[in-house]
């Protein structure tokens, strides 16, 4: 293990390579360019395939193909580019192909600008593409965590045959922090052997019946059957893969709920609130889907109130409201378009809540 100063984008790329990712296709876009550049440089050393695709559409469909062929495959982009991948992600979900899609979010709508944002939460957690599907969504809050979550992302993708989205923002992608990097390239020293066997993969039908990777189900009832199967799988994931970090949840009177970069600022605010004698806590979803509903329903009494903070005008807050279902007040603070709610704004908001006695 070595401590290296890396950008989030680089750490994600390195984490992917370590996790056995051997296919990357992407298209440049700010603020994720360091990721594609890192892959361009280092994928070849791992014996994998790097392709700068002609577009984001081509990239996601290349991932579809690479995954169907059995490779650990990924793509990355930022918001407008990820919009273009929605059809492809929906196809992967339908065909039950694993794969990792990294979205280093920037502000929108449209071209917006290149500043950080968390405004693609709905798209990621509810499937911006057509049809009824889910993707696992992981949201690291530090560069080191981003690095580590890539291993989880690929493992989960293979385990459940599902696309996994790693959702970061421009700050996470471009900032540098120390990363504890495993010894280089486990692929070449044995780790790759632990990759799961994929009997469904397209390898040529030698010695077996032909395999097929497809989302199409035309015969009457077949798609409904398939969709029921998908829903069962999603339930299994909901039951087993909720993931969050909680701080002071036991005694908190106001719980700040935030993810990714935003949660770090919330944590700072929480510390300051505690210094000022206000019992604040922090609930940071690490998996955004499945949303850590249990953290709300099981761990928490109805006395608490929640302040959800996002770099958006309110997206995750809907999941919090759905989880709490009216049993506690859920308030919201957010900015969008490049602005990031600051510690002081959060603190002010908490004081205001307390005064209004919500």
């Amino acid at each position, binding site marked *: 293990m070595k401590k290296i100063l890396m950008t989030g984008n680089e750490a994600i790329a390195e984490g992917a390579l370590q996790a056995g990712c051997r296919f990357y296709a992407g298209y440049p876009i700010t603020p994720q360019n360091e990721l594609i550049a890192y892959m361009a440089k280092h994928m070849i050393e791992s014996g994998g395939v790097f*392709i700068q695709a002609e*577009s984001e559409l*081509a990239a996601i469909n*290349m991932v579809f193909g*690479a995954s169907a062929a059995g490779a650990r495959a990924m793509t990355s982009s930022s918001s407008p580019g990820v919009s273009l991948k929605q059809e492809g992600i929906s196809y992967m979900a339908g065909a039950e192909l694993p794969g990792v899609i990294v979205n280093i979010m920037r502000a929108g709508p449209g071209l917006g600008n290149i500043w950080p944002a968390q405004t693609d939460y709905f798209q990621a957690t509810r499937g911006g593409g057509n049809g009824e599907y889910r993707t696992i969504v992981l949201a690291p809050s530090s560069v080191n965590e981003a690095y580590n979550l890539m291993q989880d992302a690929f493992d989960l993708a293979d385990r459940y045959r599902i696309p996994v989205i790693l959702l970061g923002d421009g700050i996470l992608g471009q900032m540098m922090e120390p990363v504890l990097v495993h010894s280089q390239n486990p692929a070449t020293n044995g780790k790759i052997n632990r990759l799961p066997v994929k009997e469904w993969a397209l390898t*040529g*039908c030698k010695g077996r019946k032909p395999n097929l990777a497809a*989302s*199409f189900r035309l015969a009457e009832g077949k798609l409904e059957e398939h969709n029921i199967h998908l829903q069962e799988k999603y339930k299994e994931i909901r039951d087993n893969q909720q993931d969050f970090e909680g701080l002071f949840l036991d005694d908190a009177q106001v719980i700040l709920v935030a993810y990714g970069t935003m949660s770090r600022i919330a944590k700072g605010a929480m510390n300051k609130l505690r210094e000022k004698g206000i019992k604040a806590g922090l609930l940071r979803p690490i998996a955004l889907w499945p949303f850590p509903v249990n953290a709300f329903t099981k761990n928490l009494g109805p006395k608490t109130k929640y302040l959800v903070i996002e770099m958006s005008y309110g997206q995750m807050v809907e999941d919090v409201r759905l989880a709490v279902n009216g049993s506690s007040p859920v308030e919201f603070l957010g900015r969008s378009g490049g602005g990031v709610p600051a510690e002081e704004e959060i603190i002010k908001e908490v004081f205001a809540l307390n005064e209004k006695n919500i």
Partner: protein
Amino acid sequence: MKKIFSRPESLRDVSTHYCPGCGHGIAHRLLAQAVDDLGIREKVIGVAPVGCAVVAYDYWNFDCCEAAHGRALAVATAIKRVRPANIVFTYQGDGDLAAIGTNETIHAANRGENLTVIFINNAVYGMTGGQMAPTTLLGQKTATSPRGRSADKEGYPLKISELLAQLPAVKYIERVSLHSPQEVLKAQKAIKQAFQNQIDNIGFSLVEILSPCPTYWEMPPNKAVEWVRDIMSKEFPLGRIK
């Protein structure tokens, strides 16, 4: 007596869903025959995007992959790069390859991916009900060109094979037709060649097949093959393009 013509092993013994006289059925068999002849059934991976042949994988007896409409060559690029020892082909309609998928087509060709492309030009969108394709002829009436395609508004029929032939990384392009048994036999040879090229690592090879769609040309099958012979192949001349 010996059986001298029968169903190739790579073509499953099932009925297709194609309309009577549709060229897809012939093209499927030719492809399966080429795969048999080259002994590559166990390492072929076919990519079938959306179009009338969307479920071609139900008819072929080897590994297959779906592709979203237009993205067959992106999917195939990745499969081939991940598994260079396998033989990967796409089977695409004119809407797929030359309308929504033009970008993927041009760039896979420009990268010189070592792939085999079977391109079914039937001058319409069959699957969705006979709309105008990029290859629809001038004056041809379709669901979306009810007054006939006009050069003025819709442009000329797109000769994508000729375009692709300009790219240095493209190695083989031939246009064939299914309008008679003689032409079918030529098509057979071209398809085999396009696979042989991949086996020999020669690079991007494409066979464009003029294929009747009696249904949306609104002709009986025997008239449809004549239309290919007399009209369509005048606009899209047959033979080796590169």
